[in-house]
């Protein structure tokens, strides 16, 4: 792995795809939850673009707002959610807020579709796998019973379920976890959605099954040309399987870039920390992991300043007072980061050196001498 942050090089990427129109556009999305403790700012000003046929990876720690973001796009937020004014989600040019709630059912499945972490939440335990599939098909595609059955069997085979005719009459609990997830994927793609959101589709599965499911999603996408959002907390999952990655922290996107660029020119200290915390197979055993000190900040009425400041080895005085916004990096139009002292820039290097020398950041967090510069 060579994911070190290169110095501030000028390898301006030729943005040939830059002109192509975005298929999904999320603008200043803010979703807050009213709770007895105050307003939980689960998603607090997110901007995203996703082009046709591309895959966007969304990564971040637990509680960073990944699921709320995807639920907001799907329009399936909890009742206590408040989408703030100025938030805009456009799918293929249509503002989703203007879609009549009665027509949501036609949005789901046909335009937008979702795969959840726990396959059991999207499968009804008392109805056979086949019936669940045919019902969806008949509702959306107006097929007769026979055609729906044929199509359902075709879908089950497509997602790699052996002996689909036999599985057709089985109940979800009779299938293994991996098979169940295949069925939910079959359900999700049954009406050829234009956008598939997979919210941690493999977190509950074994590595070998995870590998199969991720490959399946990739193949389905390649053959149908749909766009996909792949949500996970594992940077390893998105590294080889996405075109772009958005890193979320405390309800905001803190860095977004084409995948390869993100790994080679990481700018945000949080992205770096997230990668460094993962144990790597090619490191010798007993390599000490660079853990991120502390834990994510409270998102109930957060104080001003960078939300990562308390845990950031680069934090300076400015970080505790002002909140950085997501800005394009000068060397690539499609790479943006929300940090005053980005890695690999002269000011970022100075900031981190200063903290390492002082042994402590401006936020008072001790910095170990081994921290990556």
């Amino acid at each position, binding site marked *: 792995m060579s994911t*070190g*942050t*290169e110095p501030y090089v000028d390898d301006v990427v030729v943005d040939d795809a830059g002109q192509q129109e975005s298929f999904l556009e999320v603008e200043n999305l803010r979703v807050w*939850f*009213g*709770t*007895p*403790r105050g307003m*939980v700012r689960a998603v607090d000003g997110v901007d995203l673009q996703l082009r046709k046929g591309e895959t966007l990876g969304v990564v971040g720690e*637990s*509680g960073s707002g990944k699921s709320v973001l995807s639920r907001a796009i799907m329009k399936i937020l*909890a009742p*206590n959610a408040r989408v703030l004014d100025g938030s805009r989600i456009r799918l293929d040019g249509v503002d989703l807020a203007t879609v009549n709630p009665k027509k949501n059912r036609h949005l789901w499945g046909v335009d937008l579709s979702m795969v959840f972490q726990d396959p059991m939440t999207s499968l009804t335990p008392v109805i056979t796998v086949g019936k669940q599939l045919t019902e969806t098909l008949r509702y959306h595609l107006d097929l007769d019973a026979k055609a729906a059955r044929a199509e359902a069997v075709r879908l089950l085979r497509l997602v790699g379920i052996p002996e689909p005719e036999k599985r057709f009459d089985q109940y979800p609990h009779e299938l293994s976890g991996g098979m169940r997830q295949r069925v939910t994927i079959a359900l999700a793609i049954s009406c050829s959605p234009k956008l598939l959101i997979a919210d941690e589709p493999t977190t509950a599965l074994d590595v070998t099954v995870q590998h199969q499911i991720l490959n399946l999603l990739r193949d389905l996408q390649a053959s149908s040309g749909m766009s996909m959002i792949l949500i996970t907390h594992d940077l390893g999952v998105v590294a080889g399987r996405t075109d772009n990655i958005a890193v979320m922290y405390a309800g905001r996107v803190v860095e977004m870039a084409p995948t390869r660029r993100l790994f080679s020119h990481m700018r945000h200290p949080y992205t770096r920390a997230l990668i*460094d915390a993962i144990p790597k197979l090619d*490191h010798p055993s*007993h*390599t*000490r*992991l*660079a*853990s991120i*000190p*502390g*834990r*994510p900040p*409270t998102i*109930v009425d957060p104080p001003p300043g960078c939300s990562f400041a*308390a*845990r950031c080895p680069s934090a300076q005085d400015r970080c505790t007072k002002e909140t950085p916004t997501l800005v394009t990096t000068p060397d690539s139009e499609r790479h943006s980061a929300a940090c005053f002292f980005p890695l690999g820039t002269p000011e970022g290097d100075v900031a981190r050196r200063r903290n390492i020398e002082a042994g402590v950041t401006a936020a008072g967090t*001790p910095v*170990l001498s*081994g*921290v*990556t*510069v």
Partner: protein
Amino acid sequence: MTELVQQRPGPESVTEIEAPLEVFDEHVRPVRRRRDFGALFGVVWIALVALAALLAGVLPIPDPNEVTNSFSAMPSADHLLGTDAIGRDVLSRIIYGARVSMAVAIGATSLSLLIGVTIGMVAGYFRGAADATSSLFVNFMLAFPPLIFLIAVVTALQPGLLTLVVALALVGIPNFARVARANTIAFADREFVTAAKALGARPLRILTRELLVNVMLPILSLALVVMATLVVAEGSLSFLGVGVPPPTPSWGGMLAAGRESLSEEPQLVLVPALFFFLTVFSFNRLGDWARGRVGRESSI
């Protein structure tokens, strides 16, 4: 670029202390607690009845067995709730009668809770023979219509408050045993019980230190509902004349006495009936409220 790999500090280095501990609020539950007026009324009412029963001796009320010569009088300044057919003060009899109801509610329920929870927890934790024996007992108890069982027990033994409490306690045992057993089985599967075993804890310690507190939450909400049932049962027995023997006042006995002149003097039935209703209603509402707080999954 420098090393990605940090040097491991020696064993003497201090572990990084986590950020200052604040209450874990990442997954705030979105429930808004609504004020439950029924339960609030229940608390106030039961507190009043219990207090009155406790202080009956020092309250400025006439002796409940003192006979005056105004028979079946309507409420007046002398007799706030009137008098009964042989001229005794109704309010006083209600308050002294509350002693019986409260003794039953608290005494019999505590006794049956104690025995029922013990049986249920032992059965649920050890399963096997202990479980089989206790289910036999519980099912045997449940097979009797409770009222018939009570009448049989009470008539066979010396009538009196103690007999009544013991008999009612017996009726309550199966309820507690069942809920305690179900909850013990559910919690005994949790890893903290395995962890206690791994530390070498003996069964008695696991039952008392690890399981009891967890089982008691749903049991306490059940206890409120059982109290309501037992108050009704006591009333029924006294009404049938097999409860506390006269002249000791009890609500059920008052109902029974007033029954004969129901058409002419309905207040003699209505007043104890109202107290009865409000008390049972209060226990039930409190029980519902408590069960709602404990969570549905742990009841029965």
